[in-house]
Every structure is written in structure tokens, then in C-alpha cells.
């Protein structure tokens, strides 16, 4: 069998590695226009920050591919003939496949702002974007970031590290308000501003202004202000990269439409990761998932199907994580920005503004439904069990230390959290003995 995978991001590479594990003899080819080898997309910012070199963000050393007989083709795939089962490359080469996986990822999404074609205005998604940004931000004094998600905070931190003054325009009233409840948004807003970022909420970009050479010099906001900008980063999201799928005549909507086996509309063709759109997402789940973790899970799932073990995609308990300057964020289960009517939400904050824990639970049976943690590391295996077993919130609060994943000797906040919970919900008994950690202490189950 010849398996051809378009895209060497986390989805394509996970699929390739899994397929090799399941099938020792298959011929597996990875095609990518972006880079010769797989690299970690979330790590791009660390190249700019100077924390890492390019070789450091490659998850596997270069010998890995040949030793595992994963063929790498560094070229752009320009077309697919689904009847003849061939892929055309920009080099003129034609690859015949038995099964084809499209893991083409995303492209930057922008609105149609006047002036966005000026030099020094760009989105941020891949290696070429990083290289453009590195060149364009040399020696500038001011930059503007547009868009209030996770790419936005990455760009702000990157620019800030080089001493560039950053103004950050966020359309919403609260930071990342589609995802975060108000307390988390407020804490992060304060944290980001403490780092000297001029974070402006409820402010949009109206127009990008250029100079005589066609380079950006300033932006105009919807509040009528003109802000100096030697560089403008558009962090208003990404959208599935459909160019190849459409050229191949696959059914697409926002993404490449796939069933639960991640099969596209044509036999022998599959899609997974950022670029795929589930025809029938499970209740409460989104149709297009654009996360590193879901990309990896989809890649692993589709490889089973590709290797003759049809496996429907089941995401399991939701989880995600991010970092905002020095504050780490982890979430497990469901914590919507606004808790539903049947849900109670308990939120504890440390007075320093550096730690926050939110616990959501159902009012009917007190089962825990989700957690948000800022500046507190939580153990995923424990949360997976608590959420899966619909553990009563009283037990969770009493045993919270079992989920503590902070470094040894870190201050433990569980007693304070337990007291705050008991004050707010005096009727809920805190079942079970509190568990403590220590150098020789109990091992959380």
C-alpha cells in the first residue's frame, strides 16, 4: 500500500508515525511545501524570542524519517486526480497513491481592511510568516497587534521581547471573551498590561496607513485614533486550507467535509486536523477543530482507518492549554464563558493575581463538569478520571491536592481553595480525606 499524506504538521506526522507502527511494510510518503522536516508550530514564537534554534523545534532528529522509512517530499502538491489516484506536485512529479490523507492545516483569515496589503502587515501561521516578521520588525519602535486570541498574545510577547512597544487591539469587551469567563479575562488583562502591553479592549482596526514607499506607518482604529506602527500583526484567526481539496473536487464547506471515520467525499481520500470539518460533530463539540492536541488525536485515529482498522474519531474529555507571558493556563472538561443555568461555577483567586482556579459542577447531582486553572498546574489523568466518573464536587474539592502538578516545594493553595469553597457552598459536604503531596508522600491515584 502506498499512503500519501499532504502536510507535515502534527496531524500528518502523527498519522505517518501511527501508520508505520500499524503497518511495517506500507510505503508512506509525506508531502510538504512549507518545510523539509516536521517542526512544532506552537514553538515558532520561541525562535523569535531567541529561546530556541530551528533544529530545537523539530520534534524528531533528521535521521528519524529514513530509519522509519517515512519518505519526505519537500514540494507543493498542486492537484489530485481522485479517479487515477495521483497527486501532482509543483515540481512536475506525479505521485500515485492507494490512500491519500489531506492534512493541509490552515491559512490566515483576515477581514478586508483597507491597507492590509501594505508591506509590514501580515498574519502569523507558519515558518515563512516568522521569517517575514523577523525581517520586518528589525529596528522598529512600535507595532500593532489585531485580534484577541492566542496568536495575539504570542505576537505581543514576541514583539515585547525585542523592546518594541505594542498596542493590541481587541474587538471584544473582554479579553478572549468567547472562551474565558469574566474573572479569567480580567486577570489575564491585568497580567498582560503589567508587562507593558497597551491592550485596548472594544477597539477595532479601521484602516492601515502606509507611507510613500508602500510600507505601513500607522493604523486607524474604530475609535478614530491613529497609532504609530512599524509593523502590524493580524491575529484574527485561521481558516481551513482548502486549496488542494477544492482543486481535487472534494466536498467542502468551511473545511473538508468528513464522516466520523475522517473519510472525505471521494473513496480513498481522507482529511484530518485543522482542515477537516466533521459532518456530524458529537453534541457540544465543534465541527472544525484547530488545536495541536486534536490534530494529533485525529492523525492517530485516521491512521487506524488507513491501515485497515476502521476507527471512528472520538475526542474524549476536552482539554487545552496555553501560556500568557508568565501565566500558564490549563482547562479540562467544559468551562464555557458563561455557565449554563444548570451549572454552578466556583472561582478562587489568589490575592497576588497569579493563581486562579474555577470549578464548574452540575446543580442537579453536583457532578464536576470542568476546570480552568491559571498559574496552577493540574494533573490531566486525575481530571480525566474525575470528569469521566462524574465525581461529586465535594470529593473533588476535598481531594484537590491529588490533581496538583506544580513543582516540588511550590506553595500549595488547596487549603485556601477548600475554605473558600466551604464558605460559598456551605451545604456541600467535602467528602474524603484531603490528600497531600510530599517528597515521600502519598501518590495521587
Amino acid at each position, binding site marked *: 500500500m502506498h499512503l500519501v499524506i499532504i502536510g507535515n504538521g502534527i496531524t500528518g506526522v502523527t498519522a505517518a508515525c501511527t501508520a508505520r507502527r500499524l503497518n511495517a511494510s506500507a510505503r508512506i510518503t509525506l508531502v510538504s511545501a512549507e518545510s523539509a522536516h516536521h517542526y512544532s508550530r506552537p514553538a515558532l514564537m520561541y525562535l523569535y524570542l531567541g529561546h530556541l534554534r530551528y533544529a530545537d523545534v523539530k520534534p*524528531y532528529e533528521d535521521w528519524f524519517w529514513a530509519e522509519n522509512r517515512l519518505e519526505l517530499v519537500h514540494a507543493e502538491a498542486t492537484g489530485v486526480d481522485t479517479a487515477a489516484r495521483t497527486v501532482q506536485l509543483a515540481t512536475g512529479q506525479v505521485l500515485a497513491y492507494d490512500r491519500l490523507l489531506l492534512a493541509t492545516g490552515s491559512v490566515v483569515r483576515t477581514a478586508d481592511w483597507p491597507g492590509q496589503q501594505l508591506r509590514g502587515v501580515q498574519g502569523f501561521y507558519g515558518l515563512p510568516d516568522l521569517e517575514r516578521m523577523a525581517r520586518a520588525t528589525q529596528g522598529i519602535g512600535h507595532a500593532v497587534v489585531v485580534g484577541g486570541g492566542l496568536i495575539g498574545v504570542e505576537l505581543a510577547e514576541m514583539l515585547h521581547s525585542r523592546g518594541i512597544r505594542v498596542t493590541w487591539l481587541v474587538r471584544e469587551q473582554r479579553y478572549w471573551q468567547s472562551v474565558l469567563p469574566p474573572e479569567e479575562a480580567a486577570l489575564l488583562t491585568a497580567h498582560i498590561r503589567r508587562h507593558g502591553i497597551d491592550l485596548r479592549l472594544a477597539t477595532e482596526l479601521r484602516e492601515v496607513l502606509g507611507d510613500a514607499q508602500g510600507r505601513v506607518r500607522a493604523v486607524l482604529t474604530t475609535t478614530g485614533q491613529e497609532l504609530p506602527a512599524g509593523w502590524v500583526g493580524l491575529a484574527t484567526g485561521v481558516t481551513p486550507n482548502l486549496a488542494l481539496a477544492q482543486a481535487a473536487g472534494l466536498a467542502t464547506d468551511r473545511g473538508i467535509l468528513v464522516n466520523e471515520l475522517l473519510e472525505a467525499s471521494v473513496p480513498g481520500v481522507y482529511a484530518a486536523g485543522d482542515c477537516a470539518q466533521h459532518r456530524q460533530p458529537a453534541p457540544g463539540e465543534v465541527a472544525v477543530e484547530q488545536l495541536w492536541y486534536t490534530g494529533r488525536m485525529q492523525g492517530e485515529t485516521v491512521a487506524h482507518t488507513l491501515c485497515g482498522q476502521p476507527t471512528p474519531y472520538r475526542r474524549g474529555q476536552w482539554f487545552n492549554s496555553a501560556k500568557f507571558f508568565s501565566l500558564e493556563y490549563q482547562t479540562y472538561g467544559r468551562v464555557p464563558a458563561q455557565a449554563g443555568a444548570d451549572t454552578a461555577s466556583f472561582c478562587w483567586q489568589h490575592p497576588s493575581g497569579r493563581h486562579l482556579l474555577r470549578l464548574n459542577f452540575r446543580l442537579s447531582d453536583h457532578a464536576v463538569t470542568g476546570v480552568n486553572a491559571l498559574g496552577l498546574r493540574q494533573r490531566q489523568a486525575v481530571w480525566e478520571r474525575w470528569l469521566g466518573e462524574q465525581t461529586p464536587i465535594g470529593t473533588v474539592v476535598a481531594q484537590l491536592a491529588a490533581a496538583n502538578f506544580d*513543582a516540588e516545594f511550590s506553595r500549595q493553595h488547596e487549603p485556601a481553595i477548600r475554605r473558600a469553597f466551604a464558605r460559598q457552598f456551605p451545604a456541600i459536604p467535602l467528602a474524603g480525606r484531603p490528600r497531600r503531596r510530599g517528597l515521600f508522600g502519598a501518590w495521587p491515584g
Partner: protein
Amino acid sequence: MQDFPAPSLALAPPPAAATPPGEKPALAAVALGLLALLAAAADADAARAQLSLGIALALLSGGALAWAWLAFGRAEAGWHPHDLWRRASTSRGAVAWASGLALTGFYVVLYWFPWLLTNLIRALDPFSQSLRHRVADQWFLYGTFYTLAVLVLGGRALWKYRFSRYHLARTASVMFFQLGFSFLLPGLLLALQQPEYYFTYFWPLKYDYLFPGTVAQLLHGGGLGVFMVFWGVVMAFVATPVLTYFLGKRWYCAWVCGCGGLAETAGDAYRQLSDKSRQAWRWEVRLIYPILGLIVLLTALLWLGASGAVPALGVVTGPLGQFYGFMIGSVFSGVVGVGFYPLLGSRVWCRFGCPMAAYLGLLQKHFSRFRISTNGGQCISCGNCSNACEMGIDVKQYAQCGAPIVRAACVGCGLCATACPRGVLNLENGPRAGRLAGSAFIHADSLRIL
């Protein structure tokens, strides 16, 4: 890297980061301190040399501490090694080569041309007299510089890592053991006419402590000497396995050991330089275990010779001992181990050469409750953990497939967990059952990573 795409970061690295203007006075103080040190070394007049040396040490210490404050004190506490790979000093640039040459040169002079240091040694006589009741020698000079480096750059580490109680504790610990047990106490013992003994160095690192000659000498020295022999045997064969069982190798390498102490303080800026490639790991295994084997063999042969069972064994043990002392004791641990800090990273000796690390590593890998846990499926393969590992472990290989890190090399410094931007790694001591079990969130791709 040869097949890298045309316009790339690898081919066109970003411009080197300039030293922030605010840090220049502190750096100038350090440079002046080095000049004063040279002046002291060149001055035959004892009083002037003493003055120069005093000024040199004050400028070096003050400049380094001021620099640390400027570099880490003004930003919010946290892990943000900005420009680490853009600065010449920390990315094998010209500054790193110059510092590597200077450090290596110092070791060469110290071991083989100590007469070049005569003026510096004489300048330390009053200090040596007051501490040890005897004149200084080149090793006292070395010990003084070494301890000062651990203390001053330990101060830098305390400031840099002030957000982490784990790093504060282990930094304070190595500073304490260096000052107390590797400098003051041996000096005090000499002042009291007792054998100079380092209670924090054990066989097989301090290999001669269990040689028959040393043991006989100590036993001859009365009650304290007997205790020293007892201490050396118990630490090497009882305490080391027991402590390593509960805490991993780190109790020694990152909390007590003087070599580790220098690496964690003076070497902290160079931890990213340790080679993470599979090739480097192969060299590690090829070197460190034979060195352990060699010192075990040498010790056994010496005892065999001392027992008189095999006559004329000295023909073998004499040259073998000389070879080990020269190649491992001097060249490897000193010249290469510390001299190459700015080029090869801070743990070259600990990683490739130290027989104690090999012994502790075997215990850690096969007989310990210690491991670095991976947090479920959270790894984003960013590589920050591997970059922070001074022992050259490619940590992300484990994290990205959900496996716990159980490696003989790990000294438990904890920087991988600190550098991780997603809270994926945690140093833990727990039951040995299931210690190697991976996370259920990632089905490890069982493809070879080493």
C-alpha cells in the same frame, strides 16, 4: 540541515543581540576585575599583589552580582531566556570561545604550570594562615576561586530563579555544601592538625578515599580518621543507594556535589549548549561506564595488591593509577569539564566522565522511586525542555509520546519542568510500580527515539 528550505532561519540567523546599555557598567566592572587579577598575578610585591587581588575579587563579585540584578531583577520573575541563542556569550559566539580559552588556560596553568600563579598564591597566604594555619598553595587558590564562583553566581541563580522554591532550595543547598563542606571544614581540619577531608565527596568520584593507602593513613590518624573511613564506606555503599532509591540521583548531583554546584551556578548560563543528539548519547554511554569500570578495577586491584595475595601487582596499578589520575582526574574533570563550559555546556564532566554519576545513574535507572512525569497528552513538542537540559537528554522525545523520563543521566535540576510552557513535566518520587508506564492520552509511536 542540508536540505533546509531556501529562505530560512538556519541560513540567515537573526542578528546577534546587543548588550543592553544599562548592563555595560556592570560588565566593565567584571572586565576591570579580570585586569586587576592579571595585575596581581604579575606583581612580585606581596602587599601590592594582595591589594590588587582584593580589588579584583571585589570588582568581579560586585560586577557579576550587579549584572545579575540588571539582567533578571528588572523584569517580572519567571522563565524568559530571551535572546539566549542570539547572544555571542551563550550561543558559542566569539565571547564564548574567548571565555572557553581563558578557563581552559587557567586549568592548564593550575595543573602543569602552577609557578605562574606564585604571586596570586602568595597573596592568599594571610587568608590561608587565618583559616588553615598554613601557607597557601595552588589548590587553596583554586578552592577559593571555585567557592567564590559558586557563591557569587549562586547569588545570580537565586535572583534568576526567585519564582521557584525548588530552584531556590537546591541553589542554596549547593552554595552551603561548597562553602561549608568543601572549603571551610577542610581548612578547619588542617588548622586542627587533622587530615584534610571532604565529607561531601565519596568514592568513586573521590576515588582515592577508598584506596588502601588512604584508608591506612586515615586509620592511623586516630578517632577522627577512623570516623572518616567509616563515613566514606557508609556514604559510598549504604547512604548513596538508600538516598538514590528515595530521591533519585539529584540528592547528590544537584544538591550536594561541588562539581554539580559549579554547574548549577557558574554553568547555568550554558546549560542549553549540551548536545541532545543521539550521537552524543552514544558517546556518553561509551565513556561513562568504562570510566566507572576502570576505577572499580583499579580500586579492586589496589586492595588485591595490598592484601599481598598477588605479588608485584604494583606494576599494573602504578601506571593505571597515574593514567586515571591524569586523564580522568585532571584533564577530563578540570580542563574539559569546566574549561569547555561556554562551548559544550555545563555538565560535560558529569555527563561523560564522572564515575559517581555513572554509579548514581545505574541506581536511578534500575532502583529508584524517582521519575519525571509527563502530564497526559499536553506536550506541544516545542523543545524548551530539551533546550534547558544540561545533561543532554532530549526530554521532548519522552514528553511528546507521553512517557515518563527515567534516564540514568538526569540530575534532577528541574529546569525542564520550569521551561515547559504547558506544565507537562514534573519531578516526582513515587512507587516503583508503574514507574515506566506511559500516559493513556497518547499512544506512544513505539518508533525508536534513541
